[in-house]
């Protein structure tokens, strides 16, 4: 469990970082908290020529209130966001989801944007970003582009980031005062979820509903909450449509049933939260 040889660069500015990325392209990997990347290096599943350590870039280590959005820089750790005094008021869904991200110790190192970049299909932060319809800010020597969450994560561990691009931040819309709920099923506390579900009240008769762990990326739908069996039917249809997948911890059929079981519960909780 020792990595292959690699070069290590620790830039002090965003410009330096993107210059290294421009030079090395696919040879380079961005290192932030290292909670996934270092394990992959040690298992020799990742084989970068250069690691670009962005944790000392002061400009990335900021949480900025942009009014209708909160911008979380690429070096901000999960625990730092969790400890941000305005989190519950401005990003209550993140306040609910972040405690499920790994463990206290891993959140001290793991970054918010690193989780988005890694793009595990059942991860809590990408799911929250998708449900909130947030954005990912990418910087390269070619300029800056801002992608919607839905355009950023393409599939399991696959994103729209170009090799010369650095995620410099994500932007999470402020949703104060709206009902929300988050739930996940994991084998143990802190494990990757088997599935995770989140709901955010859109209006009196509509809820935004997201699920991770059913396909290669989080899936978000607007679900009518008009009454009767509408919610159950919509979730049931979504479960059949997404199919789910098999791994050691869950069969596809079990994933579908988890979605059928928990989808209506989390929507119900969001409605109650709004009330």
């Amino acid at each position, binding site marked *: 469990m020792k990595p*292959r040889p690699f070069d290590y660069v620790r830039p002090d500015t965003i410009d330096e970082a993107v210059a290294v990325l421009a030079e090395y392209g696919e040879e380079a990997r961005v290192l932030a908290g290292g909670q996934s990347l270092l394990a992959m290096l040690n*298992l*020799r599943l990742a084989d970068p020529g250069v690691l670009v350590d962005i944790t000392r870039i002061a400009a990335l280590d900021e949480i900025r209130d942009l009014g209708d959005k909160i911008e979380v820089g690429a070096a901000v750790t999960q625990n730092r966001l969790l400890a941000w005094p305005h989190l519950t008021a401005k990003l209550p869904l993140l306040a609910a989801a972040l405690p499920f991200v790994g463990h206290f110790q891993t959140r001290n190192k793991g970054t918010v944007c690193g989780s988005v970049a890694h793009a595990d299909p059942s991860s809590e932060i990408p799911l929250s970003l998708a449900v909130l319809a947030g954005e990912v800010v990418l910087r390269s020597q070619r300029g800056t582009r801002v992608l919607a969450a839905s355009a950023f994560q393409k599939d399991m561990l696959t994103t729209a980031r170009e090799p010369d691009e650095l995620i410099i931040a994500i932007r999470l819309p402020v949703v104060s005062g709206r009902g929300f709920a988050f739930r996940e099923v994991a*084998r*143990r*506390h802190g494990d990757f979820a088997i599935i995770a579900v989140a709901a955010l009240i859109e209006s009196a008769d509509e809820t935004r509903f997201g699920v991770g762990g059913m396909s290669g990326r989080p899936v978000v739908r607007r679900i009518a909450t008009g009454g009767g069996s509408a919610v159950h039917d919509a979730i049931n249809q979504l479960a059949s449509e997404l199919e789910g997948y098999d791994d*050691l911890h869950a*069969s596809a059929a*079990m994933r579908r049933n988890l979605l059928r079981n928990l989808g209506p519960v989390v929507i119900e909780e969001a409605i109650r939260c709004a009330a």
Partner: protein
Amino acid sequence: MSIDPRAALAKDGVWAVITGEDVRKISDPFLVALKTPVHQWSLAVGRVRYVGEPVALVVAESRYLAEDAGELVQVEYRPLDAVIDPQAACGGSAPVLHPEAKTNEISVRKFTYGDTKSAFAQADARVALTVDFPRLSFTPMECYVVVAQYNPADDGYEVLANFQGPFSTHPVMARALRVPGPKLRLRIPPDSGGSFGIKLSVFPYVVLIAIAARITGRPVKWVEDRVEHLLAASSGPNRITEIEAAVRKDGRILGLRLDQLEDYGAFLRAPMPGPLYRMHGAITGAYDVANVDVVNRVVLTNKMPASLIRGFGGPQLYMALERLVQRIAIELGLDHLDVIRRNLVPAAKMPYRAAAGSLYDSGDYPRAVATATGDGRLDDLKRRRDVARAAGRKYGIGFAAVVEPAMSNMGYLSTLLTADAREKAGPKNGAVSMVTVNIDPLGAVSVTADVTVQGQGHATVLAQIVADQLGLKPDDVNVVLEMDTAKDQWSIAAGTYSCRFTPGTAVAAHIAASRMADKLKNIGAKQLNILPDDVELAQGKIRSRSNPDNAAPFGRVAGTSHWSPVMLPEGMAPALSETALWTPPELEPPSSDDRINTSLTYGFVFDMCGIEIDPLTYQVRVDRYVSMHDAGRILNPMIADGQMRGAFAQGIAAALYEEFTYNEEGAFLSGTFADYLVPTVSEIPPVEMLHLETPSPLTPLGAKGLAEGNCMSVPACIANAIADALGVKDVQVPATPRRIHALMEGAAP
């Protein structure tokens, strides 16, 4: 298989690439308990039989370089068919792992005790069940470590390794290295990073690294990493048990039949098949059953070799026996607890000779059950169940009663041979424990013992026992528990495993210390000018009982043998050191009719629990867990409590989380801690521990082993509760959400 090491050897800092061919030239296959042509060397020779089997060893300047070079070793394989399922491996069409052995089912032994045939003929009913116990391990904090060097001048090896024993494996290593025992000097450090049984299986690597030291002419260090450990260190064996009871309609068991098929993976390593035989004398568990037939079958499959882990055959046995007792209750329409009570060995029959030969030394099982279920505890469980069920929730209550053996009879494995073969080979039995108490020139006391340290608190308990005898404080006694086979005393039984410390080593310490105390009293009597009967050792002094003012400091009297042998009583040898060897007579060889007292002491554990299954997430939640223990006299309550809680946590692990998984082709699917789930503190439910103390009459301290009982009882107890909650017959552990989902939805797991 062919190996081309050239590219790896061309790398700077790479000293050697060692292959099976090198190993075959300078070492022999490991000795095994069975005379079957199943040859294992420390590297694969000619053929690879399981994922994780070491095929080549790269020796380099650093582990980084060695791993880089390892990727450059070119290995070409000619693929062969694999067999993973133990039952399929016994079939005629299965690929044979060791063609010389001609079969994968390398041992079949049938045993009959009492008159099982008549018992089944007379029974009102028969209840049968098949139980499949999975593979798992209990992973220590630190993995294997071996540092070896070879001295060509005397053709000797010196190895430091966190080996745990039993030291019966030392001759196995020395023979493999083709040296006499003293030429393999094995040192075991004072801390091992934990073990849970698994560090017995460092021994093939002791040989491998020793060979590497000889080939390279350098000291070689290997620190196993977690990937290597999970993939190839060791595992408990999986077992399929077909069990059947002949019962009266009131639930009384008249006879039992067990067919136990145990899967040891690709090789049988010493001292296997231990788990299949360690419980043999106690195969009827906590129940008074006179008639039992047993078939023990050993099978090899394409998995990592299985060996010792905590519980050592107990979890496998009790999963079958305790699930069967629950099934008897269901099929006869009786209360589960009533069936348990009706069959428990009665207190009046203690000491009790079990059908297959174990001598249960003491206990009051019915009282233990009555105590555990009393004080409103069972009523509370029933109330919780009724409330939950009334609300439509899935709640179940489980019970398990187990007998917990301790201090293995070194002769139990010879039950594997027929009586005729044993006759020819000569008897095997006993288990020697050794402790030495030393006095230094200033009278300071130190203790060495034949145990290896894994974190059980042995030093604390030994200090306490010795201090008690010498009238000192435990802090005054310095316990040194590293081992050196060249200088320390040891027998084949040495090491830390199968709860041998409390009935074995602790007793030897007691004997050695009491002998030392007697000598010091005689020395003191002369110096204090009183009769030996009037001397006591107390409060760091040697003094007169009748006149406590007539006293001398312990150290001054104790140091006499160093400075002034002239002051010793006439004819007394100097009191510098006392070594006690404790070998209890009850550990007899197997009898001609295959009865064997497999262990010295037998404790009792009775568990009961309530569990609830979350219908939304398919997770099992332990609502309340009560565990009653009778481990004889408790030597140190805090350490006993820690041991029991640790065993409980690992019982939960086996019941709900940990499993080594292979697919049908033999690919290993649980090679990281993301796949092999060790429960953390968040997953371990609270447990209420209760104690009864029925001292063992067979040891001077009256204490029994206690560190494995919950590993044995918890998986069975939780499986019984799940069966009760869901009304199902077959419960596979670990009862993962995936399996619970399949049970609830009738889907394929």
